[in-house]
């Protein structure tokens, strides 16, 4: 282990701010990307369900129109 104590590990030889900022922003960007992809997945499946509901609504209107 390069650092003798956990606090010196955190201080990163005085460059703590830059190292942890970089790692933080990288992790943040990656998490945001994954989150956006999953939200997109969910909303796309939602549009499929909405399309089906729309078809049902049109069929119902046509049925009682032709009645």
């Amino acid at each position, binding site marked *: 282990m390069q650092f003798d104590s956990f606090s010196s590990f955190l201080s990163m030889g005085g460059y703590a701010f*830059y190292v942890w900022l970089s790692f933080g922003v990288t992790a943040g960007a990656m998490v945001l990307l994954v989150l956006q992809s999953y939200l997109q997945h969910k909303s*796309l499946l939602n549009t*499929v369900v909405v399309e089906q509901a729309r078809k049902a609504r049109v069929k119902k209107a046509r049925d009682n129109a032709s009645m």
Partner: protein
Amino acid sequence: MWKWLHPYAKTEKAYRLCITLQPWFWSGALVCLFVGTVWGLAFAPQDYQQGDSFRIIYIHVPSAILSMGTYVAMAVAALVGMVWQWRTAYMAMIAMAPVGAVMTFIALFTGAAWGKPMWGAWWVWDARLTSELILLFLYIGVIALYGAFEDKQQGGKAAGVMALVGVVNIPIIHYSVEWWNTLHQGATISKFDNPSIAPEMLWPLLINLLGFAFFIGAVTTIRLRNEIVRRELHRPWVQALANTYYENKRT
């Protein structure tokens, strides 16, 4: 030629392939990233010149390499789409574009944060950072062009052409920016070279590179599945997929 690849041109098969690949990508990414980062942060030796700020290299270099790599992969997908008329290839290209853009952003940000202690300013017009920024503009161009088309099929083809134009321009941009940098070799910007990497520094770097690559594979498969669902909304297998998704969510 490449007979085994042909079935994946059809979207449903490609969708199934993504589902099988995804767990492997995710486990590979998590393991490699964890090992590479911990090794790089805690166990790798300090750089004699820059001390511990050097550890940012373990995310800056992999993301920089992969930002270029993803663009090339995007161009290859566009080429495949163009030559063999595969719709899934275009979808893969569009799935990769945002991931590559995020990689480029990470490379840019970590490069700037790494440069700050050295050069004293948050942003310096260093050759590599500048070409990385131009690469980000190329990514944004492709994504914006795809977004501008209502007909996604047409949008995919147009974005494909831009991806190929971009990939041809990357080496040209790279060398012209290098030349521009040496031309304006102001005294204030010391030419910052990658210090020669000792083997025990190199290993965590390679592992992280693999980890990032797995991560890119994982996110690309998710986004590819999204593109497939978006383009095949009315296909029965997508309808069944959506219903099963909402069934087990409701029960």
